């Protein structure tokens, strides 16, 4: 015989039931056939011999019913009725199947059906949208990658590489005339020219006085800096001429200074372009040091 009250006494309020989950304020029922999910006298599927639920399987809703007549046959206890996909028709089906049942169960079944229908709609909507794919990271791999990256960074020596690349580009001339010191190339050009005109140097030594300043193709008289430099050079060369008579030791060096300056001037005119003219004085100083030894050997 089915004694619901007895069963409820045994499992109900403060007793033990394996489906019961207790929290501070409430009791929940984990039984799959439970209609509301709470542990109550009226919601317990074990303590009610006449019970019904709505459950969902693979997107279809089913109505499960249990009556006292089948209490002795656990295998056939629950009657499963497939509900219509249409929400309104499903409600009618519930009404039809639970016609003379208690209001509580009917109401709760319909509520449950509503909730299920709503979440099924939501699932369908979400699957159409993009879904975030979670890719698991292997901790070992991540650590390994991190370490390799650090080592690669050290091996890369980025600043050096960038600087080298920039200097290479400067040398190749990708920057054109923006920067005022393509002196490296200029130096090389100058050295080449010196080798060519070594014979001319010897002649220059014999005639220090007569010098002609010939205008360059790009020479513009309006360029003041030019005149300044030329004046300086003339003045200095005159001074050197006077000083020649004074001492022999100084003579040679001064002659060489003169000649080099003239050489620098004469040679400097050929490859000169606008910005380099201003640097003329600077360039000449450099040359003094470089070409002295070569000169001396030729002179003697």
């Amino acid at each position: 015989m089915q004694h619901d009250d007895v069963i409820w006494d045994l499992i109900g309020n403060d007793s033990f039931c394996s489906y019961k989950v207790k929290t501070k304020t409430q009791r929940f029922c984990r039984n799959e056939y439970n209609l509301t999910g709470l542990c109550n006298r009226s919601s317990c599927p074990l303590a009610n011999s006449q019970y019904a639920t709505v459950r969902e399987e693979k997107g279809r809703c089913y109505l499960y019913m249990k009556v006292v007549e089948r209490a002795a046959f656990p295998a056939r206890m629950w009657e499963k009725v497939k509900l219509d996909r249409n929400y309104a028709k499903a409600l009618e089906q519930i009404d039809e199947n639970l016609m003379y049942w208690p209001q509580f169960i009917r109401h709760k079944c319909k509520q449950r059906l509503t909730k299920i229908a709503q979440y099924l709609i939501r699932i369908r909507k979400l699957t159409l949208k993009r879904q975030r794919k979670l890719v698991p990271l292997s901790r070992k791999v991540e650590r390994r990658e991190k370490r390799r990256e650090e080592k690669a960074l050290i091996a890369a020596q980025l600043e050096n590489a960038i600087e080298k690349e920039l200097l290479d580009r400067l040398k190749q001339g990708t920057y054109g005339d923006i920067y005022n010191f393509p002196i490296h190339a200029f130096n090389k050009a100058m050295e080449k020219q010196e080798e060519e005109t070594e014979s001319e140097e010897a002649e220059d030594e014999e005639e220090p006085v007569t010098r002609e300043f010939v205008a360059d193709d790009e020479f513009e008289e309006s360029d003041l800096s030019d005149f300044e430099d030329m004046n300086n050079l003339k003045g200095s060369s005159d001074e050197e001429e006077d000083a020649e008579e004074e001492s022999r030791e100084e003579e040679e060096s001064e002659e060489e200074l003169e000649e080099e300056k003239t050489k620098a001037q004469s040679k400097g005119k050929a490859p000169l372009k606008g910005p380099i003219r201003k640097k003329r004085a600077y360039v000449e100083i450099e040359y003094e040091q470089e070409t002295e030894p070569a000169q001396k050997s030729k002179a003697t």
Partner: protein
Amino acid sequence: DANIKVDKHNRNKTHTHTMVNLEKQFNFLNRVKPDEAPVQEMGQAEGEETEKKSVSGPCFPPTFSVSEIKNKQRRHAMFLKLKEEKRKQKLELKKKKKKERKALGDQAPPKEVPKTIENQRIYDETTVNPEDEEVAFDEGTDEFSAYFSRLTNPKVLITTSDRPRGRTVRFCEQLATVIPHAHVYYRRGLALKRVIPQCVSRGFTYVMVINEDRKVPNGLVLCHLPDGPTAHFKVSNVRLRKEMKRRGKDPTEHVPEVILNNFTTRLGHSIGRLFAALFPHDPQFVGRQVATFHNQRDFIFFRFHRYIFKNEKKVGIQELGPRFTLKLRSLQKGTFDSKFGEYEWVHKRHEMDSSRRKFHL
């Protein structure tokens, strides 16, 4: 008897074989007659050992192995001695070599180049030879040919994954200042496949999607638009502008120069061209800004600097702008289509990460 006494001392249970060994070793080391009482042996052994430690390294018999000693303390001590020996030998060798070098002066053989991973890199058969005609032909007809023949100007769309957090947003903004003609748009849950045709219709040449995970950007999808290749990178070590030490002022609107370093293989070449096509053709040297993509061991380091030439042999660089590193995960022909796309290259961890000296870019 002897055995038991040795046992007590060692506090180990050692079977007779090793016992014999032990005794042999001690005999060797200490030159004690085997006839003497074992306890005394031990005592003497201890004493002699300590003596030995203070004296220069012990002499080991040729069949001796440190790992055969069962006693942990003694084994450890022996091992340390062994290491000391080796270190000394190494130092002596070095000194000798240095002396020889000095003595030979100019005639010394050239210094040996130390082995680095770059030196030992496994030769990749797809390494591009600069004069390769086939490569030149390919590059003349691939998706970037339009850019490189100056038909199109780059226009970049930068966006993120859904709901970006502050760091990612700021990263996007800074990227937009670094890359000229770049526009940042919020994603708002749109599908990429729908975004792309819209971009094409509005004349964009690139779509950059920065993926975010746990409030930090960790992925980059770079899609060249008129049906160009799509590259998926892993992003790491993102440093925003305010986290940079000794940085300069904000980058100006000038078009920066581009430096691409170390892209040697065919794959590397195509990735390099992918990056190059992000920037407009003619850099404005007035701005003195340079964006660098440097490939080292398959990691691509991005840096943004301002340079100044102090003289013809020295240049000073100052870092502005964000920095990050990329690692290529996959390269797909055609625009973004993860399901049905045709992948030119996919990073397969078990095949490609097996050797420490094999790199693909």
